[in-house]
């Protein structure tokens, strides 16, 4: 996903001198390296100095540029939080804060590297939008949109890292900022997710389909502004809705879906699966950490099959 992003941005930067990348000591591998070589004046490595990364992006945007701040999610969003809030949110500047490894993807690195509450943190800032692509194709669509948009404020762009499978396809609804999209449509059960864990949601959808259900799989790539109408429609159209989310129980998609369900007096069954409100001290694969939080295909199926 991050390599796709770098490649798309590199291609767009050839024709758009507003694009600047400000990184905090991230290895410029792949296309990021090509960007640095061809546009050295627009590739700025601040070193291990994330407050400067955000402030410099704000200064660039105040002078008409389209900067992308780029580092590991915890360091992109948490370390310089007040700069993100004041410099980007308060001034409503078109800066994209790219957070690599949102959720608990950096599984062996421990809690210091888990951005498990990033949607809640970024979403609390006025003017801030949040996009979390589920696969490299969505990352491409979103990156193109970020460059092409005319105005707008800051965006927190929650990424995975490398090697995510492609989950979207020609039958998926087209990508549109702020709109939930269906990757497949059914009538009984809907599985709703976003980001890298959509892979697990797809496996849940597959298993429920094999059980004989007609299953929808939808992704909510834009977490803010949330597609309230789209979620309300999904809740109305299905008898059972399952939300799978790699984020703390507070402030993410799951509680907001519950809120919408209450507001519209939804009649479906609603199951939500999120990370726990805990720091788990477990060091293994991404799947191991998710399982330690109670997120696995088996557990979700055991719960929803009753």
């Amino acid at each position, binding site marked *: 996903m991050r390599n796709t992003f770098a490649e798309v941005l590199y291609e767009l930067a050839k024709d758009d001198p507003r694009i600047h990348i400000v990184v905090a000591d991230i290895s410029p591998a792949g296309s990021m390296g090509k960007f640095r070589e061809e546009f050295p004046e627009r590739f700025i490595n601040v070193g291990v100095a994330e407050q400067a990364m955000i402030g410099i992006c704000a*200064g660039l945007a105040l*002078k008409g540029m389209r900067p992308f701040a780029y580092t590991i999610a915890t360091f992109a969003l948490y370390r310089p939080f007040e700069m993100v809030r004041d410099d980007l949110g308060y001034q409503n500047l078109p800066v994209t804060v790219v957070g690599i490894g949102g959720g608990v993807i950096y599984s062996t690195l421990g809690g210091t590297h888990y951005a498990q509450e990033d949607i809640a943190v970024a979403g609390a800032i006025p003017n801030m939008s949040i996009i979390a692509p589920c696969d490299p194709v969505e990352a491409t669509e979103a990156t193109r949109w970020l460059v092409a948009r005319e105005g707008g404020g800051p965006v927190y762009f929650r990424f995975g890292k490398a090697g995510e499978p492609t989950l979207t396809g020609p039958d998926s609804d087209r990508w549109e900022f702020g709109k939930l999209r269906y990757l497949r449509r059914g009538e009984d059960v809907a599985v709703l997710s976003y980001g890298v864990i959509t892979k697990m949601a797809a496996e849940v959808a597959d298993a429920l389909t094999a059980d004989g259900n007609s299953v929808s799989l939808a992704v909510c790539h834009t977490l803010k502004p949330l597609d309230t109408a789209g979620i309300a429609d999904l809740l109305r159209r299905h008898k059972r809705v399952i939300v799978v989310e790699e984020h703390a129980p507070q402030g993410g998609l799951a509680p907001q879906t519950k809120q919408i369900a209450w507001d519209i007096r939804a009649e479906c069954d609603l199951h939500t699966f999120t990370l726990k409100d805990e720091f788990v001290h477990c060091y293994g694969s991404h799947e191991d950490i998710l399982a330690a939080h109670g997120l696995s295909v088996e557990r979700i199926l055991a719960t929803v099959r009753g």
Partner: protein
Amino acid sequence: MTATPGHNSFDPAASRKRCMQYRRRILDISQHVSALHAAGAFSCMELTDTCYHGLMRPDGQDTFLMSKGHGCMAQYVILEDRGVLDRKHLDDYCTAHGILGAHPDYGNPGIEASTGSLGHGMAMAVGMAIAERNKAGGSADAGAIYCVLSDGEVQEGSTWEAFMMASTLGLTNLVALIDNNDFQSLGRTSETHPSFYPLDEKLEAFGWETAIVNGHDAKAVYDAVAARKGGKPFCLIGRTTKGKGVSYMENVPIWHYRSPNPEEYAQALAELKEIAS
């Protein structure tokens, strides 16, 4: 590429006259609001005036950034004098029907960035300087950024992150002016944090060219920036007095916030005169 002042007509006598009138105007406004930050504005009055009336080129390609947001009254009265802000804007300062608050707000006329929380301005100034340099294709005509900082905010780590990047990137179109009044809320910096000094040596070690002058001597400020060797970002350290111009405000911490009562106001007006260099 250097931030060479665009015209040589800077008149120190006119600056002294302006700064006295600006202080009067700030005192006038002080009679309508309680929180004014008058002392911090008086401290950076000459530094700010020298930027607007001497260093910045008249055709608008240079940028002023008030990183010490609480000094914005100094900026507001200059913007009013130059017709960027209206008299009514200042008369409605800190009222629900006005647009100006006690810190600069991006989007208001003449305000290039929102500040108020200390330690944000320098990195934004660095970003602006990169953008101007890239827009100019690296030419010597690139827009220059003049950024006024408080000495207190130079304690913020974020300011040093930005200092480091400014010299690393060779931003010669960047000028920082530190309002070194040696005061912060809990007292004299030289007493509470003696390791803060020497400041010029620290900045030079971070790759900047520096000069220390009397920050209330506009000619000295102007000449020091104009005479810089160049090739590096430049930092002028202005030795200043918090509350400069009103005896009872000078170096008395409570005037960071307080506005004078009618008797104090009358005394301040009677005292104000042109500050000799």
